[in-house]
């Protein structure tokens, strides 16, 4: 894995297909600005899966929609944000140009497949439409390609299934059909927003396996968003833990589960039931995810954090590397390890951008 400091997000190897810097998405309401995504940075290389995990309300889905250019008023992606896909700065694109990117570069799969499928058209019709618009394939050729695509996503008897309507498909098959529609656009990056949350475990296992196969075949970069730590462990190469619009910890997946550093990550892992045999009570994280409506001047997790001390409410933590061997960083005043509390606080204070514009940037 990458052995550089957290600035690996700058993508020193120049391999990343999608790279996001300081993404800020705000929703303007009458009396406040909700900073749903507050200065996050990430990058994904082809063939890699980056997982984003967090509770509801942490800003995961808004991140996905911001990348896809699907944030509508009153929401807005602030001008300081940068989303670079394959060398193109997406935030500067016009609506038409963005549509082009959505068509062929970045695909997205949503939680509820029924909402991505039109109930009054057959599945075949919808896949052929995607082929016509994005790749200009029509007629019999489109039908043949559509059959191949359904076969790729392991739908049995595809010729027949093409003529069926979404309501004739089971939940798992609908999600497969949506994936087939995405593949029709031949994307380089696939954003999956809780694609298995609505499915049963056996079907979830099928879909996860399918995504892994497709990824290996097509060298896809996948951004996988979920709140399920189990699924994250299974599918991701690297994981970013999101809390109140910011990433609080970033690490390769094995490292994150073996050595979670941020108290929030530790809390999330402890709250998983059924992992151990003993009959003890589950650990919980008190309180709820706050709605960030001010630039962060403190640690947003401090009110719920079991390890918080007074400085946590005054200094905004920045990402510090917490491992010599892995690309593992966390934004918490408990780190860097081995230093006194005053030194640590001073470290974070000095790193904080003067204009306090920022979230957890490096």
């Amino acid at each position, binding site marked *: 894995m990458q052995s550089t400091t957290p600035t690996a997000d700058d993508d020193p190897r120049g391999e990343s297909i999608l790279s996001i810097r300081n993404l800020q998405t705000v929703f303007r309401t009458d009396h406040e600005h909700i900073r749903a995504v507050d200065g996050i940075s990430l990058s994904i290389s082809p063939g890699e899966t980056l997982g984003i995990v967090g509770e*509801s309300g942490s800003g995961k889905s808004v991140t996905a929609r911001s990348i896809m250019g699907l944030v509508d008023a009153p929401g807005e992606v602030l001008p300081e944000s940068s989303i670079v896909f394959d060398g193109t700065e997406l935030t500067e694109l016009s609506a038409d140009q963005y549509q082009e990117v959505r068509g062929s570069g970045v695909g997205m799969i949503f939680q509820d497949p029924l909402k991505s499928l039109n109930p009054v058209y057959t599945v075949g019709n919808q896949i052929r439409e995607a082929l016509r618009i994005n790749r200009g394939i029509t007629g019999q050729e489109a039908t043949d390609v559509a059959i191949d695509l359904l076969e790729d996503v392991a739908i*049995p008897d595809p*010729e*027949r299934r093409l003529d069926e309507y979404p309501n004739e498909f089971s939940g798992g098959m609908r999600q497969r059909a949506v994936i087939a529609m995405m593949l029709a656009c031949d994307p380089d990056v696939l954003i999956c927003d809780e694609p298995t949350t609505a499915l049963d475990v*056996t079907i*979830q*296992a099928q879909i996860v396996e399918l995504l892994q196969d497709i990824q290996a075949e097509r060298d896809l970069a996948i951004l996988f968003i979920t709140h399920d730590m189990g699924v*994250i462990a299974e599918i*991701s190469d690297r994981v970013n833990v999101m809390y109140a619009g910011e990433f609080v910890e970033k690490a390769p997946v094995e490292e994150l*589960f073996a050595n979670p550093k941020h108290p929030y990550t530790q809390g999330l892992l402890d709250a998983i039931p059924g992992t151990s045999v003993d009959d003890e009570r589950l650990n919980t994280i008190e309180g709820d995810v706050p709605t960030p409506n001010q630039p962060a001047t403190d640690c947003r997790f401090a009110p719920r954090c079991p390890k918080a001390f007074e400085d946590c409410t005054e200094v905004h933590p920045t990402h510090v590397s917490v491992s010599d061997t892995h690309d593992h960083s966390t934004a918490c005043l408990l780190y860097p390890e081995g230093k006194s509390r005053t030194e640590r606080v001073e470290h974070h204070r000095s790193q904080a951008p003067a204009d306090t514009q920022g979230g957890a940037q490096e």
Partner: protein
Amino acid sequence: MSQQSIQSTADADQHSQPLVEVTDLKKHYGDGGRFSGPPVKAVDGVNFEIQEGETLGLVGESGSGKTTLGRTLIQLETATEGTVSFDGRDITKLTGSDLKQWRKNAQIVFQDPDSSLNDRMTIGEIVREPLDAHDWNSPAERRDRVKELLSSVGLQADHYYRYPHQFSGGQRQRIGIARALALEPEFMVLDEPVSALDASVQAKILNLLEDLQDEFGLTYLFIAHDLSVVRHICDRVAVMYLGKIMEIGETEELYADAKNPYTRSLLSAIPRPDPTIDRNRITLPGAPPSPRNPPAGCQFSTRCPAKIRPEAYADIDDDTWSRIEQFREVVRERTRDQMGVRDRVKRRLGTFSKYDDIEEAADDLFADVDLPAGITDTVDTAIEAVKDGRPTEAHDALTREFGGVCDTERPDMHQVSDAGRLSYCHRHDSEYDSVADTLADRSHE
């Protein structure tokens, strides 16, 4: 067989009378009327019992009938057949005021805390409603009781005058629990109470449910599709598939060493929060069949990884065999289609062509494997029959040739452990290899 086994379980359990005893319970929908299709067999003959103070988990995929079973237990649905006895009394026969009186004993917490609370009532009114309905004491006492309930589920007394939209998902679920507790029930059905919640909130609700059980001596039926949650909270677990209990037994034992092929597949599919784990996942093919048209033999036979093959085909390699199984499933799917009048006429005239695409499906499956001659003949006959518009004939022919005991006969419940665990599978018959051996064999090849 099943009756005997159940008797012996009862003996094993400290000789006490169970609080809830379910016998051959069935719930069918859409049964009756000359022109109605076959009924949906949501619950199709289940037997189990719940001891006092125990938590029984009920797990299964969506559509397995677990919610229907839970609702039938507390008489929100009327059973089609079978009995539910509660403290020795058959409650499926209760009506009128007897039923209303009994309902105090059994309450339910619903899955979705958004839709199970009336948005136009205050929290106080919502929690007080069961007390009002049963004319419990004086209004002043009811109000005090509600405040007491709110505090026992971790809310504050001044929440009494607020409305549901002012609460988060976890808090709403607490309100639902307070309402269920109002009449001091002995038995509670928890229908996926934590599925809609985040992990950390989930943990709080689970802790609360455990505390309440200790405090009030409650008996729970805990319905969930999340197997890790069930492992944490339940004493015993029943695994359901297509209206039938596949395996039932003590939680730890069942999780550590599942005997039924379905339970094993289900457990192997749980995503583990441990990226280093080296696992042997069994990925089941396809989706569960429709409960309107369940397989004639074992309900799980269309997806079972340990299905018994007929003697004659024991030596065929697994890949070829799984293709044959897939082909059978394709044909079985076609038997579901209702044929219109025009198609029937065409069929009679021999010009029927709607099903010609079966050939392509067969090609896809068999193009790159060498089928032994005998198999090719059967497959070809089936293809012809389907093309002629007679998929049912084709399906029957395939079943005659390739079907084993799993396709034709319903299994019995077999006792599979000393603690009285039961499992629904033909492989527990001594004449067949065990499930564990078969799965190990098949995954090796």
